[in-house]
């Protein structure tokens, strides 16, 4: 018995034109006849070509697919802006916050957003921040106590007109509250008031009490870039009032005489006048916003003598702070007041009659009326004085009417 030799597991040899494939362990081989060498070469080339073609088409396919994907991505990017995010997503919530904040005025929105931003500041979680606040409160109380001590010892300064800056700073928060919160006063044309130099503001007067003068001064002090102090010329009756006469002086207000006005203007101060005087402030509700006579033109003489530009100012909203129904001259004479109004709250509600109605106010500043062109001595020209007085009065009246036309509500504006 012959031993079978194991077949070599060798590669298939293609020594000849036949292909011998070993089958298992037997010696049998399967012979596959193949074609000639040329044919074999052509097939391999064709195969290679077809493989190459296949590869090429695959590459093309791949490129095409990439292009399609790019296009799809581009389309989705465009659509993304219009895509409504699902509810409760962070984008939806931030959109809602933005929408809600847009319902408020820009000032209020800013305050709300700033406070929100500050609440997520890590400083708020720090105990030292609260200690610091406590320290600052103590420091403020200490400085207030020192201020009081100095005031009681007489250690303070006033200017030649009696203006005391510390008193102004003390009462400023109250006036600012009335200005910003109570009457929500809106000003227009503040930029027409020069940063420095003599200027005369000519305003309408109304409202039974001189709140309009106080608010005019507050508006300019709080909003003018140069924080100018307004020197209002007061009617001669005000210095007869106890306490109030002292307060007006401490706040920089001056008795209304031509000499005082000229002196203030020569000192390059910002002066305000209310030429209607008592007649204007004591108007009844039925005569509201109809300007009374602008005096005898004393303010025009002051402006002409000092070559001061006059700025007409209209104050709308003050008329309705007290609804005066009629005046009682007899009572006024008895108590030494220039007038005694009977309003819907005064004198029936006693001291509550002094509480003004929270109307919405508008203070509009008109274009300056120059006087330098009239030259020296023009203040002696009575015709010119009369003409300019009427001109200013008409301008202020027009400004009032223009504002009233735009105003939709007395309380809300």
């Amino acid at each position, binding site marked *: 018995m012959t031993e079978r030799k194991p077949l070599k597991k060798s590669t298939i040899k293609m020594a000849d034109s036949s292909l011998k494939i070993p089958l298992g362990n037997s010696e049998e081989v399967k012979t596959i006849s193949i074609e000639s060498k040329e044919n074999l070469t052509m097939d391999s080339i064709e195969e290679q070509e077809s493989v190459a073609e296949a590869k090429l088409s695959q590459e093309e396919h791949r490129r095409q697919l990439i292009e399609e994907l790019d296009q799809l991505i581009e389309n989705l990017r465009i659509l993304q802006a219009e895509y409504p995010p699902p509810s409760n997503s962070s984008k939806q919530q931030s959109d809602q916050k933005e929408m809600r904040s847009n319902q408020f005025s820009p000032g209020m929105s800013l305050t709300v957003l700033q406070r929100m931003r500050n609440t997520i500041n890590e400083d708020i979680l720090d105990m030292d921040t609260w200690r610091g606040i406590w320290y600052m409160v103590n420091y403020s109380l200490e400085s207030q106590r020192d201020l009081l001590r100095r005031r009681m010892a007489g250690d303070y300064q006033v200017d030649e007109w009696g203006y005391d800056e510390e008193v102004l700073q003390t009462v400023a928060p109250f006036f600012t509250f009335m200005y910003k919160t109570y009457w929500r006063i809106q000003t227009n044309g503040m930029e027409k008031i020069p940063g420095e130099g003599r200027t005369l503001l000519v305003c309408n007067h109304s409202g039974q009490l001189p709140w309009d003068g106080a608010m005019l001064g507050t508006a300019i002090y709080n909003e003018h*870039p140069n924080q100018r102090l307004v020197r209002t010329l007061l009617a001669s009756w005000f210095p007869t009032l106890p306490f109030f006469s002292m307060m007006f002086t401490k706040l920089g207000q001056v008795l209304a005489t031509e000499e005082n006005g000229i002196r203030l203007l020569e000192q390059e101060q910002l002066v305000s006048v209310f030429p209607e005087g008592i007649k204007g402030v004591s108007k009844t509700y039925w005569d509201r916003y109809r300007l009374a006579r602008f005096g005898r033109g004393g303010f025009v003489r002051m402006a002409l003598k000092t070559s001061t530009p006059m700025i007409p100012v209209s104050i709308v909203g003050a008329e309705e702070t007290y609804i005066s129904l009629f005046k009682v001259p007899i009572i006024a004479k008895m108590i030494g007041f220039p007038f005694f109004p009977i309003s819907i709250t005064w004198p029936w509600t006693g001291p509550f009659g002094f509480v003004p109605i929270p109307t919405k106010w508008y203070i509009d500043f008109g274009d300056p009326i120059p006087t330098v062109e009239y030259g020296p001595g023009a203040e002696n020209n009575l015709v010119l004085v009369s003409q300019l007085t009427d001109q200013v009065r008409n301008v202020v009246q027009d400004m009032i009417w223009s504002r009233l036309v735009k105003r939709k509500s007395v309380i809300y504006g």
Partner: protein
Amino acid sequence: MPVFNNTSQLQKTIERLFNLVGEDPEAIKVIENSKLILRLKITSPAMEVNINGRKSPPEVSYGSNSLKPDLEVETSADSLHYILLGEMPVGKAWSGGKLKAHGAITKSFVLATIFHSGQRFYPQVLKEMAIK
């Protein structure tokens, strides 16, 4: 050892810093909308910075002026340096008495915006001024 050797160095640093803060639109917007007059009083060495938010754009001036500030902050130059570097939190500066504020404290969010904006630019300013 003090951070700033003399007033001139402090002035140049602070002026450069506020020039950069003045180009930050967010800070400008907050200051403008606040309409506040701010004063930053720096001590050792001494310097005053006034920011008038009532003007558009807000005006920064140096030295004393006649405007009465709505909010005044007093701090030393070294404390300001560490606050702007972020090494001293503002709360700690307050509690330690290193930062004193007078005036409308409720409006102090404007200061926070200025400090945050300053903190962004301060390292760059230190490099420019070659201060370590």
